[in-house]
């Protein structure tokens, strides 16, 4: 299809969608209004079950089976991305000899800040996962913080240290175990008393999201180093 035809077709479809969407929004309750039937019921049940953070309660108690589905989407997307980004042996041999992973040349300030912030960020991630049932936070948010925390070492230019801190097989196994734990917990919690359900599921999700992020970023880094086989001179991330 030629670009002009495609844009014309899109314009027609977009105009129709926009008309339907506008018509639909006119029928919605006013923005900021006080009619929130779902919110009232969800808050009521969360308070009854003793979970002060209602968002966590909705995710891991009231809609736990739904979250289970989303969790499995996350797992399968991460597995598929890792499988797609796997370094084929011929590529490895072709690219392997051309680069060496030494510490990159970054300023001392960045290096120090990266190393200082690493434990603090990890602690924050653990806190946000562990305290997700009580205060703003939860497994998804804390997992993202945990997964990105160890990449502060990459920003600090210390790629060898990052590789030591991040053994890929361990993270792969941990992610699989966390996903299995989530499935088992969700199945075991169905029909049981709600006590302890939210923190346990929170922790499983936090571990899984963190591991998935570490795996994905790690695989993308490998690809970036492979593709930049002949880096331009002066690239700070590629040591000469």
């Amino acid at each position: 299809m030629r670009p002009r035809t495609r844009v014309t077709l899109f314009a027609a479809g977009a105009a129709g969608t926009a008309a339907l969407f506008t018509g639909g929004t006119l029928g919605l309750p006013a923005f900021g209004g006080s009619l929130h039937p779902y919110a009232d019921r969800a808050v009521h049940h969360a308070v009854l079950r003793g979970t002060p953070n209602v968002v966590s309660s909705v995710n891991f108690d009231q809609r736990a089976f739904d979250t289970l589905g989303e969790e499995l989407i996350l797992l399968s997307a991460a597995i598929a991305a890792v499988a797609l980004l796997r370094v084929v042996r011929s590529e490895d041999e072709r690219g392997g000899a051309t680069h060496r992973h030494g510490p990159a040349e970054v300023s001392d300030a960045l290096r120090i800040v990266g190393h200082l912030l690493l434990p603090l960020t990890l602690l924050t991630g653990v806190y946000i996962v562990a305290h997700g049932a009580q205060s703003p936070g939860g497994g998804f948010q804390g997992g993202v913080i945990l997964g990105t925390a160890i990449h502060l070492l990459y920003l600090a230019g210390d790629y060898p240290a990052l590789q030591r801190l991040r053994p890929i097989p361990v993270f792969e196994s941990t992610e699989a175990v966390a996903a299995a734990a989530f499935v088992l917990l969700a199945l075991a919690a169905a029909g049981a008393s709600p006590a302890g359900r939210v923190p346990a599921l929170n922790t499983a999700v936090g571990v899984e999201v963190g591991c998935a992020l570490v795996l994905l970023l790690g695989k993308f880094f490998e690809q970036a180093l492979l593709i930049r086989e002949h880096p331009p001179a002066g690239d700070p991330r590629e040591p000469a």
Partner: protein
Amino acid sequence: MSTVPYLTAGWIMLAGLYGIVTTRDLVHAVVCLSVTQSGTYVLLLAIGYRSGATAPVFSDRPPPPAGGPVTDPVVQAMTLTDIVVGATVTALLLALSVQVAKRRGTLDPGALRPLEP
């Protein structure tokens, strides 16, 4: 004026779709898909907003009606999981783009042909 937040969500979605339709680069298409998806976040959060309300967390204050109104936690929970799952799906699509670039040597969807060796 009370429909402006909803219409903004629709506008973001259409802007992202326009990018997908006219794109010349698969990475650009993936980013446009993320833009399209953020339209749904805006719509969900706009639906859940309540004037004068606070976050639905009761660790330091009583729940409503005593503690005042709160925003809708259901749509917030949906947005939250949507963001995390969306990030992983974006990573999957970028991984596919890396493979396409490696095998075909191009990222232009117009230059790709099916069953090309």
